[in-house]
């Protein structure tokens, strides 16, 4: 089989893995040949579905002995199978890298023969890249659940980031949709990697995971709870959420007529995830056992603010950074601008606009010159209505539009 066909099959098989970030790794040179990493990560292009392409994301092989019902590569699917040799893939990575197509490699694989055999093949590819080409760029390696501790140790020492997808947020859903996997086996590699890198007491290896959204009946509360536990306990750097794409037919799988609300839900989960990681929110502030799901129409911060009006309105001239970033519509950058600018003068709503901070949402939650705005009273129902009502659109008259002429009095 030619490289063209292999690449097309193996990239296609890997595309449902959403992680493609290349950020957060240190910029030291270790292997001394080609390549470097960049702390903030770099997008090299964007696909026609609007996702960033940063890494050469492929499977080493799409053959798999497992039969997970949501997965396109499950053994019972009649699909064309292909495999790269480790050397072939290493060469391809270098050729792509030097043309600046990519930041590095994202390597995963279906399970060939058994877990350890697969893990060894992945490691061989990494060794060629690191030792033969001296590649210092970014490599994200998928740890194969169930592979041995020794192999995971080697993998962690060669990769910039490792991950293992927990796929579903609860054991119950795993049992239903991926009967050959259990919470222990999917979390296993992450726990081993964490313990190993803590023992070595250097900078711990960066880890991430992915959960599928909407393939099971887990609520947003379950998902965010699992994510925050992973952030706190397992030292994970990122949790990715992937709206379920209907690639297989199966008795236990949901039937989804259209995917738009699911994509919206994925988006809201990412927003909530940001609130957990950067805005100092706790998962049980955003949701609880009463309110189990995020609002699809409002972003999670606005949703939280409407349910906690006792914290508002906030005086932007006095509030701390922690309070400022809790105002809907004001992000980290906006908060820093406010902190910087208010050293020189007392800020009002117009000043925010001049500093290019959006006040569309924020104006309902702050004091302007010590006063609260008068149009909408500070009650949940009123504010919700105001926030959801579409902003008035300007009339775009067509040339020689008669109705417009009637409106403006022109002939």
């Amino acid at each position, binding site marked *: 089989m030619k490289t063209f066909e292999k690449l*097309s099959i193996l990239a296609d098989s890997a595309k449902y893995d959403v992680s493609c970030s290349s950020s957060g790794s240190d910029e030291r040179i270790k292997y001394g040949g*080609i390549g470097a990493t960049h702390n903030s990560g*770099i997008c090299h*292009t964007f696909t026609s*579905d*609007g996702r960033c392409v940063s890494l050469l994301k492929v499977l080493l092989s799409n053959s798999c002995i497992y039969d997970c019902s949501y997965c396109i590569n499950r053994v019972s699917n009649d699909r064309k199978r292909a495999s790269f040799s480790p050397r072939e893939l290493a060469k391809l990575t270098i050729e792509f890298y*030097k043309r*600046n197509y990519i930041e590095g490699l994202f390597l995963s694989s279906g399970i060939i023969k058994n877990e350890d055999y697969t893990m060894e093949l992945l490691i061989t590819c990494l060794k060629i890249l690191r030792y033969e080409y*001296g590649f210092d760029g970014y490599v994200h390696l998928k740890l194969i659940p169930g592979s041995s501790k020794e192999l995971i140790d080697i993998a962690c020492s060669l990769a910039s980031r490792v991950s293992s997808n927990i796929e579903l947020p609860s054991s119950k859903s795993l049992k239903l949709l991926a009967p050959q996997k259990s919470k222990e086996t999917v979390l296993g590699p992450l726990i081993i990697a964490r313990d190993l890198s803590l023992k070595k007491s250097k900078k711990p290896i960066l880890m991430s995971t992915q959960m599928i959204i909407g393939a099971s009946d887990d609520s947003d509360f379950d998902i965010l709870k699992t994510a925050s536990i992973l952030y706190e306990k397992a030292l994970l750097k990122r949790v990715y959420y992937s709206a379920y794409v209907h690639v297989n037919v199966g008795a236990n799988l949901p039937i989804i007529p259209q995917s738009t609300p699911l994509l919206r839900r994925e988006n809201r989960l990412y927003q909530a995830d940001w609130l957990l990681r950067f805005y100092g929110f706790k998962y049980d502030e955003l949701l609880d056992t009463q309110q189990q799901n995020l609002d699809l129409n409002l972003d999670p911060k606005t949703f939280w603010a409407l349910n906690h009006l006792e914290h508002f309105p906030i005086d932007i001239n006095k509030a701390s950074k922690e309070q400022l970033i809790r105002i809907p519509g004001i992000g980290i950058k906006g908060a820093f601008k406010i902190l910087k600018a208010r050293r020189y003068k007392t800020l009002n709503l117009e000043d925010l606009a001049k500093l290019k901070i959006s006040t569309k949402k924020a104006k309902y939650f702050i004091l302007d010159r010590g006063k609260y705005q008068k149009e909408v009273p500070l009650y949940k129902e009123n504010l919700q209505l105001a926030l959801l009502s579409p902003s008035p659109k300007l009339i775009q008259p067509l040339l020689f539009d008669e109705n417009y002429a009637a409106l403006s009095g022109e002939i």
Partner: protein
Amino acid sequence: MRIVYDGSFEGFLCVVYAVYYKKIRIQEIFTHSSFSLLSFDAYEIQTDTIQAKKVLNTLHARFEKTHYERITHIFLCDSVHVEKELLEYIILGFKDQKYLENITIPSIFRLHELQKEFFRLVHKMYGFVRFVELEDGNLYAKIETKFNVLPFLGKHFCKRLASNNFIIHDIKRKLAFVKSEKSTQMRVVQSFEEPTHSSDEAHFSNLWKVFFQSVAIKERENKKLQQNFVPLLYRKYMSEFS
């Protein structure tokens, strides 16, 4: 007074010199290129290397590092005219460095935002530059950008392509960043002939196109979102879009 200068960084430093040593009060600043038809009633500032050096040294000594660097970054934003803001920035800076972080002053805010825009472009180009391999094994890239990001791109790729020689060619500005075994330098491109690609080049650029198409999820196509991230003007030299 309306003044006109040659548009170069040295020229601008001489404008600063004129303000301080010749006590000229400036209302408007033009460059030769933008001013050719209106060249009446304007005082022309001659570019003088000694004056420029003197101003540059003073700026270097009196300004904090980040404030000093902002001036040079702003000057790389060569497609916008912010000379007046920059002059005000320098005058305020000589009075007191702490003015230069006061983003409630419109001209200071404008320069802060422009600097951010500049680095956003630099960052975008880190990803969007595409090299081709030439016959002799060297790498070659063409760029056309709103601001002069070439020095930053050069530095960035020196780090990652340590074992390769490369050229980044800024088509519009007729500049090139050239890295070889012996030296690293910026050059003016006087004449230019389209170089011949290596025999492998077409193979790998086609593989890249195949990869680019295979990773897209068709059920989720969103061309508008894609265009937000990669506006058409960046696509000219990106092989996956050709």
